[in-house]
């Protein structure tokens, strides 16, 4: 699974860059040929979309792409990484051979951290590669090229926002002894919490005081800190302070890991785990 996921993020990065260029370019050609009418504001917006492919936009678009897909993939990976140990019964085998429960959890958390790092590095490099490759094919000027410092900052933030979701998936997998439950819970929180939070803030900005303590709003705040966002958010003005948001995410990580640890320590390990 780890290799497959790395392969998938590389493939997806190239594919999406190519599809965006192919799709936008086809529309531009059609407008020029008069096959379809020009959009209300002319072709500027289409050309702006095409500009996302350029290497100088990798920090916003490319890393954003890796971050979005990566969150889902790493939730799946984190839950599987732990949950399969119970399903296969290998957790019980390891304990019977003298492994400690604390050591097991520390090893799992450390390997997930390492994998998240490798994933974001590989994903970001793939996005950079895809941007240069498709720009060359499309004849888009690379301009000043990739801003390494900006891309690194964006990648670090993307890697950081993976962590609470991975910790959540791990904790649920430990509690339920099931990879499936960890995946389901992680994905539900990832998608549903963000939607609910946005809807509540759209209804009444005062709700931001509450939902800003959640994961999704903290993730948005960290992601948008010091960078221009690829996707506009009408509720952006009510996002929490990025530093506070980063602390909130760290606290969530700690809470999820402590809950997993507490359950793992106190559980009788019968059949499976």
């Amino acid at each position, binding site marked *: 699974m780890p290799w497959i996921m790395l392969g998938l993020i590389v493939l997806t990065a190239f594919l999406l860059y190519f599809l965006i260029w192919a799709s936008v370019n086809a529309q531009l050609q059609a407008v020029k040929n008069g096959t379809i009418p020009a959009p209300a504001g002319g072709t500027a917006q289409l050309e702006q979309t095409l500009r996302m492919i350029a290497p100088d936009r990798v920090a916003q678009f490319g890393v954003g792409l890796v971050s979005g897909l990566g969150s889902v993939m790493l939730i799946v990976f984190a839950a599987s990484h732990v949950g399969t140990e119970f399903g*296969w*019964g*290998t957790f*019980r*085998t*390891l*304990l*019977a*051979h*003298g*492994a*400690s429960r604390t050591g097991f959890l520390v090893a799992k958390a450390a390997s997930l951290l390492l994998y998240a790092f490798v994933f974001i590095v590989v994903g970001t490099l793939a996005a950079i590669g895809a941007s240069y490759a498709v720009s060359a094919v499309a004849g888009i000027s690379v301009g000043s090229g990739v801003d390494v410092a900006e891309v690194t900052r964006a990648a670090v933030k993307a890697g950081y926002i993976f962590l609470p979701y991975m910790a959540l998936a791990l904790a649920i997998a430990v509690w339920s002894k099931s990879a499936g439950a960890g995946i389901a819970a992680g994905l539900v929180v990832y998608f549903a919490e963000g939607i609910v939070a946005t809807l509540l803030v759209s209804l009444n900005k005062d709700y931001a005081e509450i939902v800003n303590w959640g994961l999704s709003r903290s993730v948005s705040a960290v992601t948008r800190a010091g960078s221009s966002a690829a996707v506009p958010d009408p509720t952006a003005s009510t996002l929490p302070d990025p530093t506070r948001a980063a602390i909130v995410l760290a606290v969530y990580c700690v809470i999820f890991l402590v809950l997993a640890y507490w359950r793992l320590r106190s559980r*009788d*390990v*019968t*059949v*499976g785990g």
Partner: protein
Amino acid sequence: MTGEVVLRTNGLVKRFGSITAVNGLDLEVRRGEVVGLLGPNGAGKSTTIGMVLGLIAPTAGSAEVLGRDVRVRREEALAGVGAMLEVTSFYPYLSGRDNLTGVALLRGGGALARVDPLLARLGLAQRGGSKFRTYSLGMRQRLGIASTLLSDPALVILDEPANGLDPAGQREIRELIRELAGENRGVLLASHLLHEVEQVCDRVLVIKKGKLIASGTIAEITRGGGSYFEIVVGDQTRAAQILRGLGVKEIRETPTGLDVVADPARGAELNRALASAGLYASAIVPRASSLEDVFMELTEPESPSASPAS
């Protein structure tokens, strides 16, 4: 019985809610002996093993391996234990050799150097490079047994090691178990295969509903190899009355007649008494009590003979 005690449990109790799975269990395993742990399904064998390995926390009592309390010094205690659980589980995407290597890395010491010799000893040298998921049940059991020996343990715990093995494989495992005892290790063997236990164990512990109901050597458990007669006769009630008149105390009705515990020399006397009363037995067969007989007697649900530990 002079070997060093490698495993001792003291009043081990485990309750799951209102169910008492293990109830005040005291047992000992010494170096150089093979101890059989017997009991019907749900008797508490696996729970006992789980507590010995620190997988399950006892409600009361303690388990000590080489004098170290498993709850207090688990890692140290388990350094001297090799355990194979009832369901042998390894990483399915790794080869048998890689799985053993993983366990060896966990064990440390000279365990890595034992991987290939153990694969060879358990007959897995040819398939060591194959993925675990491709292994047959018997091969999985062999790999499980190999993993128990990586740390050169003083105590080997085997839970149903012959599961899935063909008769030749079962025989090899029996020989291996005796070899382990010969290497001055203590072996705790939980098995449903009573003839296997009978052949390899020095002592047997029978547990039922979590309580030790009998313990001793095979000869002691089977009442010194006690004998009985299997009598095939029609009117069991009358036949039993007549035999009781001869001073026979232990009589059990069977579907075809009676099982009668009596001196083997009294066969003719029993036959004559029945014939004198007009009851002609179609067979009077002298039998020796097997472990299976005793086990069935001890563990049958309504058995009145289920007495406290001997």
